[in-house]
């Protein structure tokens, strides 16, 4: 604690509007930001992280009441600042990078103009200089072909590139404080690693005070100087990064840390003698879009000669960065889309060559668990129906199906009363359990899980993974497990296939893949996983 803080938040209390799930979004929080240091704020979703960030920029929604506390900056209390006061401060002294690179940029404005706006807002430089400066900034954040990127619209850049543009914008006026609100959540690991590197580098060079919000402990362990842990709007623990990591005091912190999956694959029994549950041979899929009478088509090859098999009782992981074709393979296997070529065999049945009634009948053998626990349950159907609908469609007596649904709910750890409730009355983790129950209702032989836990908080994620592991063992299921999180893959998969641009570049038993990656892409992927410290600790 050598340097004095630039900003101190003292006993901040922000009340939520009546009718919310809890009275305070932020309940008596205090912490400091110090020049040249990175403060990481962690905590599960809804714990009040973004509220703190928004309070620092005076961007709180007007439904939130500032009940008590103080944000001291440069001798002023930011909480009582008026609008004009904020205008001078925002961007110039305090800048922010938002979580969603997709939506945080105005879709109708060129990147360069949006950066130049930063200077314009504070009446700095001439329009020409602003343009040059924008170009220079894009250079600095390492955007490829900056000359072209300044003129690009947001949609013409990838997520990572957009995020860099956002960072360039935030850094334009060399603010004293940089607030980064989950700036990497939407990015894949390799891009995330680059962005983290960039922020750390800039922060050191400019001696900024950085508040970095994340719920990913891996990220925290890579960059934090200090850590604040939030739960339900309260600080449960704060201190130097090392202290929090190695000597966590609060049980919540301990739970969070424990839930971080390890990079070390647990030992697994070999399954070589089992029969094949699924066999995928030579799958090809190319998306063709556009292509009217006079229009050029756009083609994306999402699956290139994909071959793999899954043995009975085996879990095969499919990893790779965003857009590599993982979901496409899953949907091909499920026959939600038609392959251009290739075959999917379930046992002896050629799943790709049947149609109509036969297809509907065979579908019960392979079921899917979807990524988004919010989007995968029909909000207008009761949970009981959601689970029982499938068996009823396959001719099960409704009463029997409902009886079975109740049992399944018990199996995934939910109460029988859940039958009569609607999905929105459940938490994310609970909903994912409902989704699992639905998949199990048809007593399938194979389950395909596409990012089945990515949308969940780490602690909830751990529970669901355990549940899956347990069910699989008990029911003897085979599983295709799709994820971009190598830690998760390490914990649950018997074998892992690595995908890049539609092709499987490497397919090996988990332990072998982690210890001796062969393909350069696999190595790159492994290297980009954040949080070496925590993983070594957890190991």
């Amino acid at each position, binding site marked *: 604690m050598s340097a004095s803080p630039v900003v101190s938040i003292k006993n901040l209390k922000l009340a939520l509007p009546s009718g919310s799930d809890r009275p305070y979004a932020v309940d008596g929080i205090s912490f400091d930001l110090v020049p040249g240091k990175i403060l990481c704020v962690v905590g599960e979703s809804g714990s009040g992280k973004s509220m703190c960030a928004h309070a620092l920029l005076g961007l709180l929604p007007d439904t939130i009441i500032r009940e008590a506390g103080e944000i001291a900056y440069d001798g002023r209390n930011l909480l009582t600042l008026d609008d004009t006061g904020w*205008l001078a401060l*925002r961007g110039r002294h305090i800048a922010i990078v938002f979580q969603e690179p997709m939506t*945080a940029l105005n879709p*109708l404005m060129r990147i360069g103009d949006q950066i130049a706006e930063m200077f314009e807002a504070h009446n700095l430089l001439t329009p020409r200089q602003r343009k040059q400066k924008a170009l220079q900034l894009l250079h600095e954040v390492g955007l490829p072909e900056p000359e072209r990127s300044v003129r690009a*619209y947001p949609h013409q850049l990838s997520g990572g590139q957009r995020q860099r543009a956002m960072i360039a914008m935030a850094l334009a006026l060399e603010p004293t404080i940089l607030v980064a609100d989950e700036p990497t959540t939407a990015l894949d690991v390799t891009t995330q690693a680059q962005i983290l590197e960039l922020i750390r580098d800039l922060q050191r060079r400019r001696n900024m005070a950085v508040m970095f919000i994340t719920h990913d402990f891996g990220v925290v362990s890579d960059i934090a100087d200090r850590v604040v842990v939030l739960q339900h709007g309260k600080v449960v623990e704060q201190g130097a990064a090392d202290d929090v990591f190695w000597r966590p005091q609060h049980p919540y912190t301990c739970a969070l840390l424990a839930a971080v999956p390890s990079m070390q694959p647990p030992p697994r029994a070999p399954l070589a003698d089992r029969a094949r549950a699924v066999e995928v041979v030579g799958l090809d899929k190319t998306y063709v879009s556009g292509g*009217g009478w006079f*229009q050029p088509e756009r083609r994306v090859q999402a699956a290139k000669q994909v071959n793999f098999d899954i043995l009975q009782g085996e879990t095969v992981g499919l990893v790779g960065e965003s857009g590599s074709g993982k979901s496409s393979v899953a949907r091909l296997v499920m026959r939600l889309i038609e392959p251009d070529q290739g075959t999917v065999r379930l046992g002896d049945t050629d799943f790709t060559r049947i149609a109509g009634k036969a297809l509907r009948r065979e579908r019960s053998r392979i079921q899917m668990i979807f990524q988004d626990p919010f989007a995968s349950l029909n909000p207008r159907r009761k949970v009981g129906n959601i689970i029982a609908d499938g068996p009823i469609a396959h001719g099960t007596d409704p009463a029997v199906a409902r009886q079975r649904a109740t049992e399944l709910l018990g199996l995934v750890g939910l109460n029988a009363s859940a039958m009569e409730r609607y999905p929105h009355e459940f938490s994310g983790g609970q909903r994912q359990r409902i989704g699992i129950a639905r998949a199990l209702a048809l007593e399938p032989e194979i389950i395909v899980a596409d990012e089945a836990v990515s949308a969940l908080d780490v602690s909830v994620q751990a529970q669901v993974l355990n549940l899956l592991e347990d069910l699989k063992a008990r029911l003897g299921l085979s599983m295709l497990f799709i994820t971009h999180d190598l830690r998760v893959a390490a914990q649950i998969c018997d074998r892992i296939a690595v995908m890049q641009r539609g092709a499987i570049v490497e397919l090996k038993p988990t332990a072998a893949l982690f210890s001796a990656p062969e393909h350069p892409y696999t190595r790159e992927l492994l290297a980009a996983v954040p949080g070496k410290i925590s993983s070594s600790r957890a190991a």
Partner: protein
Amino acid sequence: MPAFIAQRLAKAVVVLLAIVVFNFMLIRMAPGDPAMVMAGEAGASDQIFVTQLREKFGLDQPLPVQLYRYVKGIVTLDLGFSFRQQMPVAKLIAERLPATLLLTVTAFVISLLIGVLFGTLAARFAGTWADTAITILALIFYATPLFWVALMAILLFSVSMDWLPSFGYETVGANYTGFAHVLDVGAHLILPATTMGLFFMATYARMTRASMLEVKRHDFVKTARAKGLRDAVIQRRHVLRNALLPVVTLAGLQAGTLVGGAVLTETVFAWPGIGRLMYEALLQRDYNLLLGVFVVCSAMVLAFNLITDLIYRAVDPRIEFAS
């Protein structure tokens, strides 16, 4: 871009032909025919008279033959001959189209400008009395039958105050030229264009308001605020521009229908436009003329849709890539 336009035009031609055939059949289902109407108007008639007329109009031919002849004409851009007015349909329409275009375009521009302005104000002051006032006013405009508003406007501005002319397109016999003529036509235009625009004005105001409130919640608006931009700039540059996209779509859909919807306004204000022509042609069973107006109106709708799409593409850079 040219490819896109060509593709749209090709589709438009197909739709237009379908409309021609459909309407041709539809209109023939109506009781009576032009010969009957003209016979009725003459105050006396006999069988010879009616037969003569039918022969002259080609109505003695079987329906498929008539249809074939008509479609053949259309393909060669010949809209045929008006039975009643004894003139090429194309000429009749060409005479009246400019007036309708002037009226509808003015009504459209007025309603769009004022509607967006009021919508913006309402969104800006959402929840205040100004917002409530604008919303209520818009609803009243929306809910009042046009022909009633028109009459009220005439009574108020022409009869009571004598500010504006109540009928026609220009002061007949005044023979104004140059700027005086423009002013004269302008004065005649105000009442019909405004009455016609009121409904749409209300629609756009409400749509703009809703759209702006929606856009305001987007993250990039927060980004803009975080830059320290002044509120006025944010509203204009970030919120309004994005909010206008759905308004543009709606307006494009409506601009085309405005032309066909001008019947009432043109009738009440004696505006010499194509809407009235259509209505009269219908009453007189002037088949070719009626079909001609339909074709032209539909072409107009398609043209407006195309223009809207082009504008949309110009305003929204995402489109080009997406399609």
